[in-house]
């Protein structure tokens, strides 16, 4: 669905699909969620010997990105409160809804179009310079072929969101982002983020990469990861054709509260954006098994895109 979402929504009034991942929701052992409200924290926040919050752990208790409500949807800030109630997290506005017909199977057409609309209804959007509006629209319209994370390339930062594993040492952190095979098709990424007080390499000396040069520091109990040195080959949010330049500079904030980890990113890219954009907070939940290990993600081999006959997409 690619035209102005408000007009489309009014015109169609179609069903919204929240959990296209329902089939997957039963796989990870985590309870299936019927709302995507940010999970409430529980338990203490562990600290390291030097008094910092310890972010170490496997942060996949919501079942990676596709169990329950996909992060891709939570990322766009639509709070699904029940089958009859939804709200925009960013603006607080209530979205009028009515329950869909559950007496018959929802076919692919209804489900997909509903999901495509849902992902575009959030109010928290980056503001591009006017000369790029057409570019963004076209990228979204042509996303079957243009989405850089649709053909097994890395999602990049910040699109990858919250890492599924964090290993925290005194002077660095390890982040692991498993490849995804759901609404996007990506390969595994890792980051090694120093927190030793070093300065960035001058931007002009960095070759752009998918995860950039990330350097962390603590602001109180919040880990701040400051990253630049990106390639321009990724989008910075899940949908919408949100491209960026190689001068993108991101500030991620990780805050642990008990068994939850809240993440936001602010994207600075004055080459293409009129103003910095800050994501709606996303929340990950720690795997309750203290002995949990992060499972291998499947290798990715994309074979469908050459067989698509329409531009319909998510």
């Amino acid at each position, binding site marked *: 669905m690619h*035209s102005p979402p408000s007009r489309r929504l009014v015109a169609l009034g179609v069903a919204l699909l929240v959990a296209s991942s329902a*089939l997957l929701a039963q796989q990870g052992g985590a309870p299936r969620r019927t709302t995507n409200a940010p999970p409430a924290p529980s338990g203490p926040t562990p600290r390291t010997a030097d008094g910092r919050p310890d972010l170490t752990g496997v942060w996949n208790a919501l079942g990676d990105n596709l169990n329950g409500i996909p992060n891709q949807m939570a990322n766009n800030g639509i709070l699904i409160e029940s089958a009859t109630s939804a709200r925009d997290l960013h603006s607080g506005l209530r979205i009028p809804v009515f329950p869909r017909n559950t007496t018959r199977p*929802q076919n*692919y057409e209804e489900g997909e179009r509903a999901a495509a609309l849902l992902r575009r209804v959030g*109010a928290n959007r980056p503001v591009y310079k006017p000369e790029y509006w057409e570019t963004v*629209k076209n990228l979204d319209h042509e996303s079957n072929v243009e989405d850089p994370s649709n053909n097994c390339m890395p999602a990049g930062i910040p699109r990858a969101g919250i890492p599924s594993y964090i290993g925290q040492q005194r002077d660095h952190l390890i982040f692991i982002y498993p490849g995804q095979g759901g609404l996007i098709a990506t390969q595994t990424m890792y980051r090694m983020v120093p927190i030793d007080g070093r300065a960035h390499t001058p931007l002009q000396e960095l070759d752009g990469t998918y995860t950039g040069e990330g350097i962390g520091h603590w602001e109180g109990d919040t880990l701040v990861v400051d990253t630049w040195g990106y390639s321009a080959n990724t989008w910075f949010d899940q949908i919408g054709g949100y491209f960026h330049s190689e001068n993108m500079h991101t500030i991620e904030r990780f805050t642990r509260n008990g068994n939850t980890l809240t993440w936001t990113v602010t994207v600075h890219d004055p080459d293409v954006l009129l103003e910095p954009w800050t994501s709606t907070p996303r929340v990950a939940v720690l795997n309750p098994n203290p002995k949990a290990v992060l499972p291998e993600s499947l290798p990715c081999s994309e074979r469908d895109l050459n067989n698509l006959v329409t531009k319909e997409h*998510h």
Partner: protein
Amino acid sequence: MTPVRRTLPAAALALALAGPSAAHHSIQAQFDINKTITVSGTVAKVEFINPHSYLTVTVKETDGTVTKWAFEMAAAAQLRRAGLSRADRGGLKAGDEVTVLALAARNGSNTGLLQELKMADGREFKFTPDPTGN
């Protein structure tokens, strides 16, 4: 879509809490959701990969030629749950004779989206959503 902030539409929207399995592309952009095909043949390859697992089936035509079909399958974990993981636990393996019911490819290629699978021993697996979309 203009990339500017906009207020939410005051549209009446149906809200669904479940639906067909997720895919990295639109199902209907690739497959005809109203047309199925049935193919019987021999399993050549089972691949549990992202973004979709694949079942490759070879079909010997009446003229002796061999046609290869590639069927897109659900997520690997779903197949495992259905007992289609290891061959020694009843899973698929190369050489198995199967009949596949699939949504037809809209471009006429020898591909499809797996809906039902019948094994030679009589077992049947269905991958269509139930009435609640699960």
